[in-house]
């Protein structure tokens, strides 16, 4: 899932400026699971904003709303009526949500309430860690299911670097060495021979180096075809 964290309250206040009518808009997908932007977090932030406004003697109306996914237009379109008279939308979605709201409602001030951090997994209650760097060309088949780009601090494809100690990374001793994990996993699978193969340099155009990426599935574009 996409993991995000709420921005510091002072930053949110600064962004909102003198807005008097604000919608705090949550997203019930990834950011709800990582406790950053679901219904619960919308309620909390709305309460905080209302209390702060009262303390400061400012007039502020906060509308609380959440949608299933902020990254799909079909869930944003029905918001038109509620958004008609707001000064700003504070999105508690990931960066995708913020941008799509701004695209759908192009005359509306849309502000990010979260910092989008990573694509990762739940390690334990209240802790998430990165697993995927969205490089666009998965190599997990040859690295035993452990991603060297997302989990090796140096992103080495033919690791390890030699700096790890006791199985921990030399850059950050709190995280495990990805190549130690890869070795352990391949040994368990009886596939250590994988490590004797040199992995060719990657074509990084599939990653961010090729600029913003798109995915097209013609067979799913039925509506578009019928429009044509």
């Amino acid at each position, binding site marked *: 899932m996409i993991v995000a964290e709420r921005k*510091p*309250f*002072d930053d949110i206040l600064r962004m909102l400026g003198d807005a008097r009518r604000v919608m705090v808009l949550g997203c019930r997908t990834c950011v709800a699971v990582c406790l950053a932007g679901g219904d*619960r977090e919308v*309620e*909390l932030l709305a*309460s*905080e904003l*209302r*209390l*702060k406004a*009262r*303390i*400061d003697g400012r*007039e502020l*109306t906060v509308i609380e709303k959440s949608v299933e996914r902020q990254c799909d237009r079909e869930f944003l379109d029905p918001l038109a009526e509620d958004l008609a008279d707001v000064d700003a939308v504070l999105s508690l979605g990931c960066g995708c949500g913020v941008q799509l709201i701004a695209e759908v409602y192009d005359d509306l001030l849309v502000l990010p309430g979260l910092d989008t951090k990573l694509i990762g997994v739940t390690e334990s209650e209240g802790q998430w860690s990165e697993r995927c760097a969205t490089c666009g060309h998965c190599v997990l088949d040859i690295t035993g299911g452990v991603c060297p780009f997302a989990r090796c601090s140096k992103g080495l494809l033919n690791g390890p670097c030699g700096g790890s100690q006791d199985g921990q990374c030399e850059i950050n001793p709190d995280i495990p060495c990805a190549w130690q994990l890869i070795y352990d996993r391949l040994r368990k699978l009886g596939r250590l021979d994988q490590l004797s193969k040199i992995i060719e340099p990657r074509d990084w155009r599939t990653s961010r180096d090729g600029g913003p990426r798109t995915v097209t599935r013609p067979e799913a574009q039925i509506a578009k075809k019928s429009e044509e």
Partner: protein
Amino acid sequence: MTEANDFEPVIVAFCCRYCAYNAADLAGSLRLAYPPNVRIVQTQCSGSVDPRMILKAFESGADGVIVAGCMPGDCHFMEGNFRAAARVAHTKTMLEEIGLGADRVEMVYMSAAMGRTFADTVTNFTEQIRELGPSPAGRGPKPGEPAQQ
């Protein structure tokens, strides 16, 4: 009597039904006096008290909030009181960042047999809030603003 002494704080106490709620009942049975400022809300467990409920209490005009759970290790649901303590600690940071002050919410522990502890706790907390003065957020919604449920 000074102006500060005239201030009667509104205290909301979220009390676990297995301990503090019964302790409050026992305090009454024992004829122990405690300030009438306390509005008791029974909860299934202190672990069911969400920060949203605490903030809503302040939005509705509370000057202070107590979350009362079972003694550590005695939670009916194993760890509800520890969860409550973590949530109260988080709520304190929120109250601090909005300028209400972290001292307006406290987590306390007691058993159902601790009627006197309940009376003493709410008496002391009421005095603590009296010292802090009225909530800077005021008593209720501003005109034109809908009341929060």
